[in-house]
């Protein structure tokens, strides 16, 4: 769950992390607008500053104008539905501070840079030495010596204040099961450190143990967008693409391999739809429903299954159930092998559906059918 800046700042405030005084403004409720202030688009994607989503205003009139203008923007395809209006800060320096994890090393990671602000990505690419990365043992927690190292690296004098600030960020990261807490910029003001921005993402897998946190923030998001949260596809990953060969797989690796083979054999996939390695007839059914609903113009559907934890009898049940309830007029190419393969093939045979064993042959046929062949 990604949080809007204003949601992240509410968590900061709760955790005792200093943030500017501010108010949320929407098209329907502009009562919070004030000036002088910074008027900031609330979107989940990054890069809003460069795209003009943040305006500094001096008068109430300017504020009204800025609000109107930003509220009519789309940033990376996302309509701006809310603003955070905050007091202007007297900024002496802009730092970057984040805690996330390094999945390849298997450890939490603190990152700090004195080159904060909008261009941290380019700093990371061109001057990686300007970003200090410190792994933190999750059981031990943040140590004083790392806090000193970070403050030294930033050149921030008040080490005690920095340590207290960073400890709160760490505690938030752990207690809220965040996968990312990013403050860019973390600004130095006359009265000390202030989190000028907030980018927080909470681990969806932790939802069962953080029910209140998820409910509150998702409800806020739904109120803004008018959408009752994303449709829950369970373990399904669905990405629409440009071609005409529908694709469903039961593994990301084989899904991507098939994507490559489709192109190598002259076709183009209409989507990438992957069900995960431990699934059920219902998920198989949903995957077909997803593809057929979204991609009404596909010319063939390729289903690539190779069962480990997945059972081929269950996959066949899902496929046949879908076909019983829906009229499908395009060719269906199903490659099915692995766990409970015989049972799965028997179910398919009973339903009069052919089954492939070799992936390359299946891909070749799906591409051929999509191209109008037989």
């Amino acid at each position, binding site marked *: 769950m990604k949080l809007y800046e204003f949601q992240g700042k509410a968590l900061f405030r709760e955790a005792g992390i200093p943030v500017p005084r501010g108010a949320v403004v929407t098209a329907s409720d502009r009562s919070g607008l004030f000036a002088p202030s910074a008027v900031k688009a609330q979107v989940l994607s990054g890069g809003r500053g460069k795209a003009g989503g943040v305006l500094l205003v001096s008068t109430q009139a300017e504020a009204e104008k800025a609000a109107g203008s930003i509220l009519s923007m789309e940033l990376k395809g996302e309509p701006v539905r809310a603003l955070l209006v905050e007091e202007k800060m007297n900024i002496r320096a802009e730092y970057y501070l984040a805690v996330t*994890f390094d*999945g*390849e090393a*298997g*450890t*939490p990671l603190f990152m700090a840079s004195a080159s904060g602000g909008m261009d941290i*990505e380019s700093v990371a*690419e061109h001057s990686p030495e300007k970003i200090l990365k410190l792994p933190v*043992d*999750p*059981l*031990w927690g943040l140590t004083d010596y790392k806090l000193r190292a970070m403050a030294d690296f930033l050149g921030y004098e008040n080490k005690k204040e920095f340590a207290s600030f960073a400890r709160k960020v760490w505690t938030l990261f*752990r207690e809220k*099961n965040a*996968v990312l807490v990013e403050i860019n910029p973390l600004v130095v003001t006359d009265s000390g450190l202030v989190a000028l921005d907030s980018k927080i993402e909470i*681990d969806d*897998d*932790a939802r*069962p*143990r953080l029910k209140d946190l998820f409910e509150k923030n998702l409800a806020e998001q739904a109120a803004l967008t008018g959408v009752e949260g994303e449709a829950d596809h369970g*373990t399904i*990953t669905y*990405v629409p*693409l440009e071609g005409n060969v529908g694709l469903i*797989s*039961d*593994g*990301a*690796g*084989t*899904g*991507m*391999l098939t*994507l*490559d*083979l*489709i*192109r*190598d054999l002259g076709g183009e*996939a209409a989507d*990438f739809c*992957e069900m*995960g*390695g*431990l699934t059920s007839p219902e998920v198989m059914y949903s995957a077909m429903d997803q593809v057929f609903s979204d991609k009404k113009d596909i010319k063939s559907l390729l289903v690539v299954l*190779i*069962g*480990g*934890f997945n*059972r081929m009898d269950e996959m066949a049940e899902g496929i046949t159930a879908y076909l019983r309830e829906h009229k499908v007029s395009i060719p269906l190419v199903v490659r099915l*092998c*692995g*766990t409970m*393969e015989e049972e799965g093939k028997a179910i398919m045979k009973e339903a009069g559906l052919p089954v492939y064993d070799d*992936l*390359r042959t299946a891909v070749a046929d799906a591409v051929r059918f999509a191209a109008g062949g037989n």
Partner: protein
Amino acid sequence: MAILVDRDTRVLVQGITGKSGILQTKSLIDYGTAVVAGVTPGKAGTAVEGVPVFNSVADAVREVSPNAAISFVPPLFAKDAAMEAMEAGIKLLVLTMEGIPKHDVLDILSYASGRGVRVLGPGTAGVISPGKCKLGAHPARMFREGKVGVVSKSGALSYEVGKTLTDAGIGQSTVVALGGGPIWGTTQRDIVKLFNEDPETEIIVLLGEIGGGTEIAAAEYIAESVRKPVVSLIVGRAAPEGKSLGHAGAIIRGNKGTAASKMEALEKAGACLATSPAQVVELIRKLG
């Protein structure tokens, strides 16, 4: 020999009385794996497929000395179960479940690191040393004993390539799936190192995918230390940039995680590149 699991592996199944636990236990036993114990709290004294069930790992260790554990414990309880296994002295944990909270995974890996505990996963299909021991979901008939070591993040891709190799008469020493990330207890580099040191493995097959940097880290190790032939297949060449295709690691970050950058690094490290399982077979035939 082989890596991670062999004929001496004595398996403990955590969460043995759940649906997956029962099904997979049967599959492991059918393969000939020595499943010596299961654990489900409160179910001591019962049996699953003839395997005795204990209340705790400590009880199982005392009675039947397992040395590897595979876990089918639900995600929210996985952390506690992993700690139970580690504190009881188990040195190989196979965490099959997806959806374990990431901070729980980080905690597990912190405790395991340096204590000599090897963690496969989470979200792994496991490992098979064909003809010796299967500790995972690998469909038995797709694998046969031999000299090729295979490592993959994706379980399904490791089956796909295993199947292609086996159909072509090429056997495997061990086939390892690491899980889809975004956090891994064991990475491709770790497994390549083990294959490099395994006398029985003569050729290493590295299956990679777009996103993240684990293949690059493996390529660095290959360049430095590996003298055995390496064949590599990186999937996702045709994936659109900037989109996540399932594995959370599979998000292209700058140039780092593209198929092209990985293929380049592996080629420079001396690996032979394939673009399909069939080509993996061809390359191995040339090398053999």
